[in-house]
């Protein structure tokens, strides 16, 4: 499985350079916003999710699956590696963007957005990203990466639509205290969700003929 991680990092390296460019670009763009930190971090973490999906595209281009399944690798390992990859990329992006925005916040503090709020916000973004990728990975294993790009749009559109609808229905936003306690529980929920998603993907991939 470590070999597969190596393989993905080598193939994604080219893409990583684009990421660094985006990092600088979005740092500049977000500097003009009210709260640059959340926007910047949100975007960088989203990019890391897209990198995971890109690794599937590269695999499909090289017809990698058939080759991988001629090696001493189990299907479970192949699935597990992608989940691990997405977590590594997500956390790498989160830590990097958190550090950058912390430095920026030192120079241009946002009122009411201290370290605690910043940490909560970052945690929420990580959880949201893992939630999306947790939905997407089984779909990719089932339908292939090309078809799954359509789902990607749907996955992002659905929660946004839900929030807008709830807002239209006149539901007020929950209190800050309620939000904070929700965020505290969130990582555990996401962890469970991720595990479930992994098990589903293993099931899908194990029954697939290549």
């Amino acid at each position, binding site marked *: 499985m470590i070999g597969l991680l190596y393989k993905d990092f080598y193939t994604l390296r080219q893409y990583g350079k684009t990421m660094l460019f985006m990092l600088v670009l979005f740092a500049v763009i977000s500097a003009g916003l009210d709260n640059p930190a959340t926007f910047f971090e949100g975007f960088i973490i989203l990019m890391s999710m897209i990198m995971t999906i890109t690794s599937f595209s590269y695999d499909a281009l090289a017809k990698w699956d058939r080759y991988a*399944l001629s090696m001493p690798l189990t299907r479970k390992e192949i699935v597990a590696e992608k989940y691990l990859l997405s977590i590594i990329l997500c956390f790498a992006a989160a830590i990097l963007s958190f550090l950058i925005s912390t430095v920026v916040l030192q120079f241009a503090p946002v009122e009411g957005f201290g370290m605690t709020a910043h940490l909560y916000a970052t945690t929420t973004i990580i959880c949201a990203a893992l939630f999306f990728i947790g939905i997407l990975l089984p779909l990719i294993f089932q339908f292939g990466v090309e078809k799954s790009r359509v789902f990607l749009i749907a996955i992002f559109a659905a929660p946004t639509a839900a929030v807008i609808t709830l807002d239209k229905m006149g539901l007020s936003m929950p209190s800050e205290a309620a939000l904070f306690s929700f965020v505290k529980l969130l990582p555990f929920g996401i962890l469970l969700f991720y595990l479930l998603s992994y098990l589903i993907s293993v099931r899908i991939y194990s029954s697939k003929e290549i």
Partner: protein
Amino acid sequence: MNAIEVNDLSKRFDSFQLKKVNFTLPKGSIMGFIGENGAGKTTTIKLMLNQLWVDSGSIQIFGLDHKVDEKKIKNDIGVVLDEGYFYENIKPRQISKIMEKIYTQWDAPLFYDYLNRFRLPTDKLIKDFSRGMKMKLSIATALSHHPKLLMLDEATSGLDPVVRSEILDLFLEFIQDEDHSILFSSHITSDLEKVADYITFLHEGGIIFSESKDELLHDYGLLLCGGEDYKTVDKGDIIGHRESRFGHEILVKNKERLKQKYKGLIIDSISIEEIMLFYVKGEEFK
């Protein structure tokens, strides 16, 4: 002991069916797997590698069940596919780093030896390689974890004769070790004629024959005759028949016996390619 034993292997698809395929590859030999495109060669290889599920029948590799001992078996197999390899944005040096983590017996110095021998650069992206170079790289990769069995699916197709002969030499070298075996699917039958010990011929999902090459070439013959003589030939002796401007060409078996039987007629030797064509395109065969 046998490297591969396939018994009554069947697999059904919507438009194609593999029918009770049987063959055995003894250790220390090279088997050529021939047949036209779509005959079932790749399907058989995929079934052996557990990439497709077997409907019925059994596959044993190194005497082990291909499913139960999958990981163990795959650690000892080197596979070269006509499609399916690394993404092209990778360098041979990185391949070695990756494989080191996948195969327990990966031998990096050996890999670099092969690269050297094939005059392949270690620090260039694969996308800058020619098709011949890519294939040599695949083969170098497949050989560098000390496999006991090499499986090649159309590996020499699309390569020029010089590269092909270089690769064939390597195969002959690999087979020097009595523990080593090669299964080599190709539709370039001349390559197989050069190196194979056994020939297995698949046609429309079924095995036509799986025999030693020498016996095949010794056994099969081409009987040439005119229209009058054709009528005297026993129908039971005709395996395949082709009529041309110059007369009748008949594919026969038991060449030596028939030479005695039809003393006036000419029975020539025949190449594997021609045998294959007779079966695929011949008007009649039993």
